[in-house]
């Protein structure tokens, strides 16, 4: 126990010394680039601190440790405060106050707009929501919640029905034999190009089979047996192949995020990459 504490203290001291040295080296590097003294100190600190936080978060790959905990708590605290400030200044002050009170708009130094009485309704609903903090009249907040959930669900019904249902149905009305002019022309103009008759017809067949088998897979009112079960199996194969392709594509994007972070460490912090 005493040994592990000692080791932790040594590691902490080493980390502090290393990053202090890094800060000083970065300061001189910025000075050599002609940056002003005060800005050199400030920028060197921020870059070094950002590098420390990056490595602290990445240390999670080894195991949970105090450095990760520090970075995590700092991240959570700063982000919660940041989004609260953004929400207050952009939504409340930027959008709400100019339309309900010119006096308040002048106080917050935002241009006043025409007063809109309807904006008092979300004000009342918001106050009702905050009453949740009271144990006696906290039940009032349920009305606001019901309004939020019910209204957006109702509005989304029409939106999703149009975009995710009717438009999708419309897009499955495709010819199975594209530009069909008979067997002779089909073979005489046969090609494997993406815009060719064969490939486009094959693609339409794939869409036809994929849509139907996928819909059958998501049918919950019938046991998946016999022909239904077979079609459902085809559906899950189509889904899994799609997911596999999506997985590979997305992983490439995630690797690019890692490359960005490593570029920061090796270029901005250590200066090893020009």
């Amino acid at each position, binding site marked *: 126990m005493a040994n592990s504490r000692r080791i932790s203290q040594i590691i902490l001291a080493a980390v502090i010394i290393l990053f202090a040295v890094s800060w000083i080296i970065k300061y001189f590097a910025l000075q050599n680039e002609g940056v002003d003294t005060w800005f050199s100190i400030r920028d060197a600190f921020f870059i070094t601190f950002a590098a420390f936080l990056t490595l602290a978060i990445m240390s999670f790959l080894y195991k949970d440790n105090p450095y990760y905990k520090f970075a995590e708590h700092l991240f959570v605290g700063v982000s919660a405060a940041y989004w609260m400030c953004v929400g207050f200044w952009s939504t409340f002050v930027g959008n709400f106050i100019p339309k309900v009170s010119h006096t308040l708009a002048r106080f917050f130094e935002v241009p006043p707009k025409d007063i809109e009485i309807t904006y008092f309704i979300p004000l009342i609903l918001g106050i009702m929501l905050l009453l949740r903090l009271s144990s006696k009249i906290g039940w009032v907040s349920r009305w606001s919640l019901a309004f939020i959930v019910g209204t957006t669900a109702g509005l989304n019904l029409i939106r999703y029905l149009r975009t995710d*249902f009717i438009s999708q149905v419309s897009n499955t009305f495709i010819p199975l034999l594209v530009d069909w002019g008979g067997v002779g022309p089909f073979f005489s103009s046969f090609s494997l190009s993406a815009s060719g008759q064969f490939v486009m017809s094959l693609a339409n067949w794939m869409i036809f089979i994929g849509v139907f088998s996928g819909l059958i897979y998501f049918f919950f*009112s019938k046991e998946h047996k016999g022909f239904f079960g077979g079609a459902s199996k085809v559906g899950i194969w189509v889904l899994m192949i799609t997911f596999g392709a999506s997985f590979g594509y997305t992983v490439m994007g995630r690797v690019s995020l890692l490359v960005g972070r490593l570029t920061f460490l090796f270029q901005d912090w250590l200066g090893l990459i020009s």
Partner: protein
Amino acid sequence: MKLKLLIFLCLLLFLIIPPSWGQEDATMENPADTLSIPPPAPVTNLRANDVDNDHGHAIEVRWTKSVDDGAGLNNVFGYVVYRALSPEGPFEERGRVPIGEEYYNDVGSKEKESIAYMPDYTNYFYKIRTLTSDSTIFRDTGVLGPVYSYGQWFNKARIPVLIFVAGFLIVTLFFISKAKSGADLFVRQLAGIEAVDEAIGRATEMGKPILYVLGLGTASEIATIASFTILGRVAKKVAEYQTGLIVPCYDPIVMTVAQETVKASYMDAGRPDSYNDDMVYFVTQSQFAYVAAVNGTMLRELPATNIYMGKFFAESLILAETGALAGSIQIAGTDEIAQIPFFVVACDYTLIGEELYAASAYLGREPILLGSLKAQDYAKAAVIFIAIIGFITVNFGWTGFTQLFEVPNSFFSQLFGGPS
């Protein structure tokens, strides 16, 4: 000799002529400059009316193209649409239209602060200018107006949507009433749902808590609403077994609803005193800060079971991999197509897309949920049937049936012009 002197004098004269004279001569000698473009014929049959099936702030201007557009003098370069608030002007240019076109959608903004603000019920006057390649040669029509824009209460182009909504509503109400009357509505087994009870039992045996993540959606997202129902079911079981429950939330409203749900479940289980508001807590509304906090919780609290139900984005793999590292049994469900592969790879059970919505009905067995699930299945059957008819009609070249399902987005049709 005299001839030579004459030639010499001519050459001398040429040398002392100023350069501009040469240019003037060249200009004067250009045969093209001797022709001037005649003005084209104006457009005819100019008419303007409010754009139908929209929220207002848009006027449709139509005309019959000039006889010199692609024929006759064939000197039309394009058209310019002008608008004014009075017949006398001043007219401002609203847009340019290429040759061959015979309409223009004059779309404005509904925001008073916007530069493009176009109020409804305001009289506007239009005229069309027919251009040639020479900007000084054109022909204007007479002034048309007044015409004003206004919004419609009913969007006739979305009648197919209304028919579907009405039909779906009738079927849903039928099955809800059937479920309420006690009929046994069959729902096939879903592996992920069956595993929830097993996972809760495992957590109880190990004496470890259950971590339930509602995702990054808001309280109005369909996936989050489905997740609330599953949370209620899980919380009731957790209350009965006296297991711990941890629900970190990304959205404050979601946290509020989740607290209500868990509290009600504890009361249903007869254990209201066991409920603690700290079980369901707000973390932060920053995506990766939230993930960092949940990851830390996973490795410190070491939950036996992790349940991810709701809307997830790039953090899905981070959550699932950390949970796997902690040795938890993991059950996930989301309707985000891009994130399902990550859950499939890293979790023990995954509910794909609509299975998440079915899970809430399957677990809760409430008549309303079961009835709507059955109605959805019948809607899918209707889609298959309609798609088959659509396939047949398209392959035989009959477009009447397919046109019924072309529901335009009136916003985009306004923005990019064309018949609405």
